Structure formats: structure tokens, C-alpha cells
């Protein structure tokens, strides 16, 4: 078993649920071929550096896993058949230095996967707090302007 990283770009024309479904299907391809997924890192919708199949954007998803080297050809064959994929990049982490970096990235991805639940809630709350004060002055300003207009 060797450490591999699969970067997958899913078509942007699909809806959010369809993207999640296709990502799950991709992960299943790896697990069904004897691979073990260590961590995943959804990088989200990004602008592509160049258009692929006339798409300007794509949904990036990175999968860190240990797979038997012989299974890679089969997995890549399945990826090629999948029409929802724009591009995939498979990278092998073989030397000691690369494996150390790989483990570092896996722990980082795991932490990022756990963190969002904690991080997202304040992010959602803060705009709501900011919006309340901004709305009030706008209403006041309009109220001030209205009498002026009436006076004129």
C-alpha cells in the first residue's frame, strides 16, 4: 500500500447536491478498489487557469488515501469514463521526505474538516450583527432626506 493524493475537478454545471453525489461516487471508486481514504479536502469552486471543455470554473476536491499500486490503473480508468470529471491528477508520495509532507497534509486536512463546524457559526453570526447597525443609519438618512425634499 502506497500513499496517493487524488485531485479531482468536477463539472461546475451540476447543482451542489449533484456535485456532492459525484464526489461520493469518486470516493467509492477508491474504496471499492481496496483503497483507504485518510482525509479529504474540498477546495470548493475555483476559477480554472484555462478553460477545460469550455468550462471556466470547476469544483476542486482532494482525496488523500493509501492504495495498492496495482489498483491505480483501474481507478484512473474509472475516472476517465466518468463524464462529470473535468480533470484528475494522481500523485504518488514515495520517499521519506514526501511521506512526511503527506502525513502533515493529512493531519491538516483532518483538522480543517473538524474545524468548520466551530468556525462557520461565528462567520454566520458576524454579518448579521454588522447588518443591524448598518441598516439603521440608512433608514435614518432616508428619513432626514425626506423632510428636506418635502421642504424644497
Amino acid at each position, binding site marked *: 500500500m502506497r500513499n496517493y493524493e487524488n485531485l479531482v475537478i468536477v463539472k461546475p454545471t451540476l447543482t451542489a447536491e449533484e456535485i456532492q453525489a459525484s464526489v461520493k461516487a469518486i470516493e467509492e471508486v477508491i474504496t471499492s478498489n481496496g483503497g483507504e481514504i485518510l482525509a479529504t479536502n474540498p477546495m470548493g469552486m475555483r476559477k480554472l487557469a*484555462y478553460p*477545460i471543455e469550455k468550462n471556466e470554473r470547476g469544483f476542486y476536491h482532494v482525496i488523500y488515501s493509501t492504495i495498492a499500486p496495482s489498483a491505480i490503473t483501474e481507478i484512473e480508468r474509472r475516472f476517465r469514463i466518468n463524464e462529470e470529471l473535468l480533470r484528475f*491528477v494522481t500523485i504518488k508520495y514515495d520517499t521519506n521526505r514526501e511521506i512526511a509532507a503527506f502525513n502533515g497534509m493529512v493531519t491538516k486536512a483532518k483538522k480543517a474538516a473538524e474545524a468548520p463546524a466551530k468556525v462557520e457559526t461565528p462567520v454566520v453570526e458576524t454579518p448579521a450583527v454588522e447588518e443591524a447597525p448598518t441598516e439603521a443609519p440608512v433608514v435614518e438618512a432616508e428619513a432626514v432626506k425626506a423632510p428636506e425634499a418635502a421642504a424644497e
Partner: protein
Amino acid sequence: MAEKRKYKKRYCKYCEAKVDFMDYKDAGALRFSLSERYKIMPRRLTGNCKRHQDMISIVIKRARAAALVPYTVTRKQVVVAPFENLK
């Protein structure tokens, strides 16, 4: 009568930072070794050592395959967006 050096002494920035591994997904970090037109900068201009130049060239090529860094840039794109997508 030692001749004065005409240019500043070149050194490898990656050696100085003790970079052991480069990640192709971090496209912003590749910017140092890319030209305005996203060509890989030669060693004689950046001062990279052989080891790190080999690493960065592999990493840039991976990033190109993953559509994080463009292969080529046309004249229009050069004017509109130099390094806009990678910060």
C-alpha cells in the same frame, strides 16, 4: 587586485527557507519561479539551486495539469490579469 563583482551574489531562496517539500496546490508560492507569462524562470535569473529548481519545475508542471497555473498566456490575458488568480 580582486575584481569587483558586477552583480549581487545569487543565492537560493528555498535553501535559505529550508524548503523540503513543495505543494502544487499552493499556487501562490510558485509565483516566485514563474515569469509574467507563467513560464518557469531559469536558474540563472532566480538563483535557485539545482535541487530546488528540479523540485519547483515538477511542482509547476503538476499545478499546470491541475489547472491552477496556466500553460500559456495570450497577449490579451497578459494585459488584463497578471497574477490575478494566484495571490
